[in-house]
């Protein structure tokens, strides 16, 4: 960095420091707003996360003999293991992202690996609900040589299913309804057509594996005929590499078996998580509102401060400060206030959060992640909020600041036609005049003439000014050459009759197009 630049930087820093001392009250309020917003957001967000984690963790995981039970919709064929997509869904779960590369948006497609990555075993089954003398039972019909329901000697009293009419019941049902091996159970099912079918089954065994949702078992063939099925309506699957929370499992399998119902060990946690998210959805509005109000507060304060510092900024500009220096000065001041607010927020959070009972339920790294998120969102919100006052400070001229005039954000100056028409160009050529088109609405001209039609004007003189959008947009029409001014109020055409007939004319590209 050159000596001049470093001197300049040092001077800016000293001036910023002095200004911060002078406007410490306003900056302190901004810092407090940032502190409150950040603290509140991180606290609230972490409380929501801990609620979700806690309720998910407290939900009991099911103990099931299979990894996944698929209840197929009517007439849907189960897919054979060999035909199940491998790896599961890596083609189905395609994620499309858009990246800005080489000045354009590019669509990039990634295959997203899902969990589980492969199924190792699949078995078809059949099932449904049947009424018994005791209750409504959810019956599962399994193959005689099933690899899933293999009971150890101490888990099964009696014998495995061997012939038509055999029934295995869980120990809980046997105890509740006082059933024993050898008892007969009549099961009734009402078909979709409304006809009733009663079938006798004989209890050949009672099993106790400690599994949840244990179901009475019959032979697959019995189930197919009992429930009048044309295709098996259940599939039992084993998976490899099934992680603790297979949150994508149900969503992935819906693409393989649309409309099916799935049962797996973590279904309770997944449902809890989904429902908790739904429950907490309105809370997301609170987080948004908090940032919004911080933004409004900072915008208001910074605008007020700008209004009070107009003379100061005018003096700085008049002694040679460039617009960039002004912006840097303001950025340093507000940036310091924001940094103080954010740092204080981190300290307060560090002190406060361990005192809350739900702190223990927070997954590790949550606070750090939320703090970084909060930092980025706060920076974004503050940038948007401070954009307007900083722009005003940058764009304002010394006169506008001193005389408290409106400061337009958009300034346009016209010394030629922006959209020349053939009529304009013909007029210029035929009468050797210079044409400017003013903006009229419904035959009325909105603006102020600084020089009246008929007067002599000089090149570069402002002829007419127009303000719109409450002064945010400012337009000037400037004389392109010396000459006399004429104005047609109906068409809004401003003509300058040049003193020098050979005065240079603006080279409109359209003139070549129109052959003028």
């Amino acid at each position, binding site marked *: 960095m050159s000596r001049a630049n470093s001197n300049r930087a040092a001077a800016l820093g000293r001036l910023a420091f002095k200004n911060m001392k002078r406007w410490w009250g306003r900056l302190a309020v901004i810092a407090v707003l940032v502190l409150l917003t950040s603290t509140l957001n991180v606290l609230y967000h972490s409380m929501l996360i801990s*609620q979700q984690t806690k*309720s998910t963790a*407290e*939900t*009991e995981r*099911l103990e099931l003999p299979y990894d996944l039970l698929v*209840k197929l919709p009517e007439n849907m064929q189960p897919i054979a293991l060999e035909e199940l997509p491998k790896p599961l869904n890596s083609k189905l779960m395609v994620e499309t992202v858009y990246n800005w590369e080489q000045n354009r948006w590019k669509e990039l497609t990634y295959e997203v690996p899902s969990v589980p990555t492969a199924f190792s075993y699949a078995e078809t089954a059949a099932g449904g*609900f049947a*009424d*018994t*003398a*005791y*209750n*409504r039972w*959810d019956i599962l019909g399994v193959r005689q040589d099933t690899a899933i329901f293999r009971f150890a000697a101490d888990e099964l009293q009696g014998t495995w299913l061997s012939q038509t009419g055999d029934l295995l019941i869980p120990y809980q049902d046997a105890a*509740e309804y006082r059933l024993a091996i050898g008892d007969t159970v*009549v099961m*009734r099912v*009402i078909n979709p*057509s*409304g*006809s*009733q079918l009663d079938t006798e089954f004989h209890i050949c065994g009672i099993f106790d594996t400690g599994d949840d*949702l244990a179901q009475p078992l019959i032979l697959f063939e019995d189930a197919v005929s009992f429930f009048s099925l044309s295709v098996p309506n259940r599939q039992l699957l084993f998976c490899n590499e099934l992680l603790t929370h297979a949150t994508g499992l149900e969503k992935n399998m819906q693409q393989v078996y649309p409309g099916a*119902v799935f*049962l797996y060990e973590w*279904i*309770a946690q997944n*449902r*809890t998580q*989904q*429902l*908790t998210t*739904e*429950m*907490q*959805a*309105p*809370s997301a*509005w*609170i987080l948004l*509102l*908090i940032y919004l*109000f911080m933004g*409004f*507060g900072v915008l*208001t*304060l910074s*605008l*007020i401060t700008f*209004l*009070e510092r107009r*003379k100061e900024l005018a003096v700085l500009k008049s002694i040679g400060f460039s617009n960039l220096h002004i912006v840097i000065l303001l950025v340093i001041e507000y940036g310091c206030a924001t940094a103080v607010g954010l740092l204080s927020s981190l300290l307060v959070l560090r002190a406060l959060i361990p005192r809350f009972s739900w702190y223990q339920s927070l997954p590790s790294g949550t606070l750090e992640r939320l703090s970084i998120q909060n930092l980025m969102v706060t920076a974004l919100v503050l940038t948007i909020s401070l954009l307007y006052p900083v722009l005003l400070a940058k764009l304002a001229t010394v006169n506008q600041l001193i005389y*408290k005039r409106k400061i337009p954000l958009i300034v346009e100056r016209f010394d030629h036609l922006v959209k020349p028409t053939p009529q304009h160009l013909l007029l210029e050529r035929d009468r050797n005049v210079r044409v400017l088109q003013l903006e009229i609405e419904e035959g009325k001209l909105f603006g102020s003439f600084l020089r009246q039609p008929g007067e002599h004007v000089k090149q570069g003189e402002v002829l007419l000014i127009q303000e719109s959008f409450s002064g945010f947009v400012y337009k000037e029409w400037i004389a392109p050459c010396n000459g006399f001014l004429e104005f047609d109020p109906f068409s809004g055409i401003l003509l300058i009759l040049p003193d020098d007939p050979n005065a240079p004319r603006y080279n409109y590209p359209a003139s070549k197009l129109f052959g003028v």
Partner: protein
Amino acid sequence: MFLKLGVTNAWRNLARSLLAILSMALAASFLSYSVSLEKGYAGGAGQFIRRMDGGEIIAYAERLSLEMPKEGETWVFTDQPLSDFTDYGLYYPEYTETGYLRLAEQANYFSESDLASISEVPGVEKVNPIYQMPAWIAGATAGSSQGNQKTAVSVLGKSESGAESAAHSLEEYIIDGHWFSEEEMDSNSVVVPQYIPGIEKPLKVGDLLHLEIPGITRSEDRLVSQWFERQTVELKVIGIVAIPTRYVSYLNSATALPDGAQIYAYSSELYLPQGLWWKLWNQTSQKLPYYPEQISIQINSLTYLEDTVYDLSNQFTHFQFISAPKAEERLLRNFSLEPEVAFRALPASVSTELRNQAIREQQAVISADLRLPILLLILFNAALLVAANILIMVTERKREMAILKAIGSMRKNIVVMVLTEAVMVTILGGSLGFFLVEIQSILNQITNQNPILSIVSSALRNYGLVIGSTTLIALFFGLFPAMKSASMSVMGVLRDE
């Protein structure tokens, strides 16, 4: 004079104060909303549910709408069928297949003390247990093509004609025959819906119905149907009810004129006289005491219906309460009582478009009650904007203030003038926000034929509360800028300006 000056200044600078006015309007509207939980309902809200269930609030012993579990509560996943003794199957028909979450510790019925406690809640006029049990219709008249086919239904015990008010009686929906008279309370008569799912040919008055009712036992405090101990009873249809669900308006493409059709429910509920219901209950359950799993609650006024539901939910956290309008909304949204055939009177395109709007809820949740934090945030922000508005005004009109001070105004006069502006902005914004929310409540109360004096006093009371609160906050936040402007040096300002 300074009050008048403040009002004039505020009126003059209304455009600049727009943001503050709108912000205060938002705060006031939210405050108005919070004063009464809902805007209330007009008299016709939730009509058919109120008549079917006999009350404005339906309560279930088993809570399926979940909210954040409290300390010690856990959720468990179950695939047990929903109770046959409630109408949960209407709202969540797929739960038996998909399973659902329920609280591990849950009540399974309403005891006598529960009913007594509920009836003591302010706003509750009457508590009605719902007498319901499952059954099968086993063929209708002799020679019916339905033969051995069975149709699952629920049988409900209802009071005789005139026992319930017009708003709570299905008698209004009778299209053929009549409702039970007092003399028929023990007779084998039944009132059936015009359309029953599974029955192709609608029943007529005079038809004989064979009803199979299961044996009923209690297992772990839950009522259980024992289908192998069923009893058959023959009933005579004495009345047909047509339950209107919705009216669909559409543009008739043939005539290019607006047209409409009333849609009626396909309901599986049959209505027995109370006496007969008890007789069947005692026969099938061996005189088990009946503890209802579902009740309906009648309240004094629809205007504060949701407030009462809220109070009940807070007081009885293990039960589930839902208002009839919300229950109706859910049933209509899911088309639970309206199969495809119910829309046969409509053109196919209208019917398809309507049915495509069906939304199946996964499992209802009770969202967090965030009225208070949102209200505080909005109020704080509105007050901040009012204060900022005053500060800007003071900054830009320093010369004016200085001149006023120079000609003899005292500090307190300046403060009064500035605060008057703040109050005027607040009252404008607050009134706008209040009336935007309150107007519907007022209209509902007029429709409910509440006394005019009561409507006016309620509105004025709420208005006073809302405007009073917002004004106090605006005064508090506007005091500092007002005092700042009053204390500035006259000479300093005039010299600088």
